């Protein structure tokens, strides 16, 4: 695509990364008046979304591997610099974050307890996420990663679901913190072992770590990040966290944050320690298989609407890790598309769940029914999300899952056979929700509360659904970019071909 309207000197990525956190700090200085805060937050989110769209459109897939590169020295004595750039894999993820941030702000319009703090923490979180996606410096990646993890605690603990929020928030924070510091030690070991006195990941990737070193540290670094990707058996924080979080935070959390884990596991684990990846991937794919199948089974068994979606995230994120674990290009491309597709899809799911819960005041599937009569657009959106989730052709899920299963088939055929069971299971829990929640009779207890959603909420759902259908009908809008990104890192990791 490569629009040529870009003035080279504008540091888009720096602005995208810092705008939310600066806006968040400024929000804290405003008076706590709801309308004012919401409008400012929406303005910031809109600007951020536009910037991410610009970066997405401006990325030239025939150009260099890393584009929009910017470098600012930060701590040269320690070889740390603010080095920002995007490649074919991270560009769509930056866009994803922009989308989720924008829709998340709209969905949060009704937050009335301390909205100032809510949006401020949410923006700090967003900055952290952007920072991880665009950092090419290992230290900065950690720096932003930790920034992204922490505000979750407050967001869930303060604005979350009263029943479980304290427990879930603490569990989530401790899990993620453990994961990240374990990975941090791995990163420090890389830094000192390489002897290059730099945290630049492009340089570190060329550092030729010894095989023993890679085999030793790969599990720590990979799993440390994959915890945030929800890998079994460290997935436990995630459904609890999803359910306890307020709607916008669930969207952020499942939509973007879990991708952060998978992405960092790819960037730091696989790309810097490729030999370690080749040694260890056979068991990683088994863990991912458990994620995929077991997650889907548990999702089937849930009575709480939101837990169904929470466990479906565990299952779908398993597909991402599985795609990476194939160590071939098909798997990588599928996993990358899945990160985007699942991010949008799950944000949409949680948005709809939030709308239903706000009105019906219950999420128990047996107590719900016939919601579709009152909320037509959310129902339609949920069904679109459901079709994506099942991997129906014509929707983004198919574009993502098909290459993953192809890749898995190339690498470990029998795992592919087991893994496809998840598609059937997914169909069963999605159809169950659609029929029980959105169709059928409306129980009298909730019928009085139900009404249609506001226009801005419809807009948010529309934006999300647009990308799901758009990517499904016209994969060309994004897949070539992912494919190019994967192709460029393939020699480094030693990926199998098509």
């Amino acid at each position, binding site marked *: 695509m490569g629009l040529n309207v870009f003035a080279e000197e504008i540091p888009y990525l720096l602005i995208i990364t810092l705008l939310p956190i600066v806006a968040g700090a400024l929000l804290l200085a405003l008076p706590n008046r709801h309308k004012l805060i919401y409008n400012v937050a929406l303005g910031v989110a809109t600007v951020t979304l536009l910037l991410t769209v610009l970066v997405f459109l401006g990325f030239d897939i025939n150009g260099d591997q890393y584009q929009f590169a910017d470098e600012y020295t930060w*701590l040269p004595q320690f070889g740390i610099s603010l080095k920002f750039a995007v490649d074919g894999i991270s560009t769509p993820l930056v866009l994803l974050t922009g989308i989720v941030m924008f829709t998340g702000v709209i969905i949060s319009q009704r937050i009335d307890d301390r909205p100032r703090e809510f949006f401020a923490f949410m923006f700090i979180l967003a900055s952290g996420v952007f920072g991880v996606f665009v950092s090419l410096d290992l230290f900065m990646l950690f720096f932003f990663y930790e920034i992204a993890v922490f505000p979750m605690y407050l967001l869930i603990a303060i604005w979350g679901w009263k029943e479980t929020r304290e427990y879930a928030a603490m569990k989530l924070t401790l899990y993620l913190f453990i994961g990240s510091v374990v990975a941090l030690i791995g990163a420090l070991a890389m830094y000192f072992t390489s002897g290059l006195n730099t945290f630049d990941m492009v340089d570190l990737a060329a550092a030729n770590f010894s095989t023993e070193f890679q085999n030793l540290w790969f599990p720590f670094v990979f799993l440390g990040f994959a915890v945030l990707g929800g890998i079994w058996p460290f997935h436990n924080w995630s459904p609890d966290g999803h359910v306890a979080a307020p709607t916008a935070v669930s969207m952020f959390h499942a939509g973007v944050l879990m991708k952060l884990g998978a992405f960092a596991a790819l960037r730091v684990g696989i790309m810097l320690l490729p030999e370690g990846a080749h040694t260890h991937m056979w068991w990683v794919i088994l863990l991912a298989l458990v994620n995929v199948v077991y997650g889907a089974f548990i999702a089937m068994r849930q009575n709480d609407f939101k837990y169904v979606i929470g466990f479906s995230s565990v299952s779908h994120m398993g597909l991402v890790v599985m795609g990476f674990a194939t160590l071939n290009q098909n798997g990588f491309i599928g996993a990358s598309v899945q990160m985007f597709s699942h991010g949008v899809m799950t944000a949409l799911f949680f948005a709809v769940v939030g709308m239903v819960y706000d009105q019906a005041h219950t999420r128990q599937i047996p107590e719900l029914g016939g919601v579709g009569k009152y909320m037509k657009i959310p129902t339609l959106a949920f069904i679109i999300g459901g079709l994506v989730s099942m991997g129906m052709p014509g929707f983004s899920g198919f574009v993502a899952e098909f290459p993953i299963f192809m890749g898995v088939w190339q690498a470990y055929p029998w795992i592919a056979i087991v893994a496809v069971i998840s598609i059937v299971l997914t169909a069963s829990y999605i159809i169950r929700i659609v029929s029980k929640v959105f169709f059928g009779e409306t129980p009298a207890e909730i019928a009085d509360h139900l009404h249609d959603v506001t226009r801005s909420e419809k807009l948010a759902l529309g934006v999300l659904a647009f990308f799901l259908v758009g990517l499904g009908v016209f994969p060309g809008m994004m897949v070539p970019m992912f494919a190019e990104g994967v192709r460029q890192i393939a020699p480094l990791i030693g990926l199998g071909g098509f």
Partner: protein
Amino acid sequence: MFLTLLPEITLVVLAFVVLTTDLALDRQSRAFLPYLTAAGMLLAVIFTIVFALPGDKPQLIFGGMLRHDWLTFVFRLVFLFGALATVLFSAGWERVARRGEYYVLIITSTLGMMLMGASADLVMLFLAIETTSIPLYILAGFITEDDKSTESGFKYLLFGAMTTAIMLYGFSMLYGFSGSTNLYWIAGALMSGELPFISMMGTVILVMAGFAFKVSMVPFHFWAPDVYEGSPTPIAGFLSTASKAAGFAVIIRVLLTAFPLEAFGGVDWTMMMAIAAALTMSVGNLIALAQTNIKRLLAYSSVAHAGYILMGIAAASELGGLSVVFYIIVYLVTNLAAFGVVAVAERTLGSNDLEAYDGLSRRSPALALVLLISLLSLAGVPPMGGFIAKVLVFAAAVEANMVWLAVVGILNAIVGLYYYLIVLKRVYLFRSEEEDKPVPIPRPSAVALTVCLIAILVFGTIIAPWFDYSGIAAGALF
């Protein structure tokens, strides 16, 4: 030579000025005393920067009693800043705000610390430690009508006297072994290789007892929670920051100069310090989990932080030294902010129980924010300074091939995060019946808190200059 001591001389003069002004003023106008003290200290800061800047080469002054180098310089500023913030917090803390002798004691103690940071001779070192400690004993017990405060002062005195005696015994042995009291001479004597390993290691342990007490290193930490709890809150902050920093200044100088690693064959004090570090942070953090009083919680947390700092010392490398200095600087502003919040909140809440902090964010959003940022910095979350400081000490441990120590550090960081979050949960999440009663912040405290807050964020985001200064300061040791 006179100029290099100008900051200390300023403090001596200031002490006399405050003491005499105190006599001359009536009760009402004594409210002016903290500002006089603060102004004098600010003057000392300016003198330190303008007149007492060390040269490229470290110099020994006053017959080898003091060493004038970058380490001295950085720690002088650390102590002065700590004292300055403490004075400002005290100005808003009614029970001590108008007591002239209180400020004189703070000044004297700061003077002692500055000499501790510069001492290059055992005699000077001992005098400096005593000059620091004795005013602190009195300050801890300053609220004589409060039994807890008296108890805390007395406890501090007994512990202090005991460990000082042990340390002095170590000093005498050092003198016996080397025939000199100068640290740099002692190093030479130990390097001769004629001393048996056991006597060198024994001396290290004896000497460390005194220093370990100052920094509340396990197993010399027992005094900390009781003393912090009982002493006036601004003083608790002072004890946990400036006084601790003084202890570390001495530890790094004495260990690295008087006990060079080369003098020990193979087994040296680094392993001992590594074990002490692991124990100190684990004990501090684990006991902090069970605390229900915020001052005790911060006391155990400060024990744990001593452990993190000891990691850098155990590394015994340039990066280790640098990380220690950086950590101390960050820890100073962070913990001052935390204790500052406690001091401010105590006036309105009337209690230091964690329960009293329920709903604080609704009563004073600003105070809650300062507490949030300082506790997160203590927990090591970016973009606060504490994150960088922790990464640096971990890096020093990894570089020194002590990955196990870094792993212990990580586990501790997680435990730490847990109890800091418990406090924040109360502040942000819990409701209380007194939510509509705001918590006012006295102006001097607000100034000090703002400065600390900005410093925490600056140390965490614009790192390069502080990294350089820490490196130069630590470079004075190698």
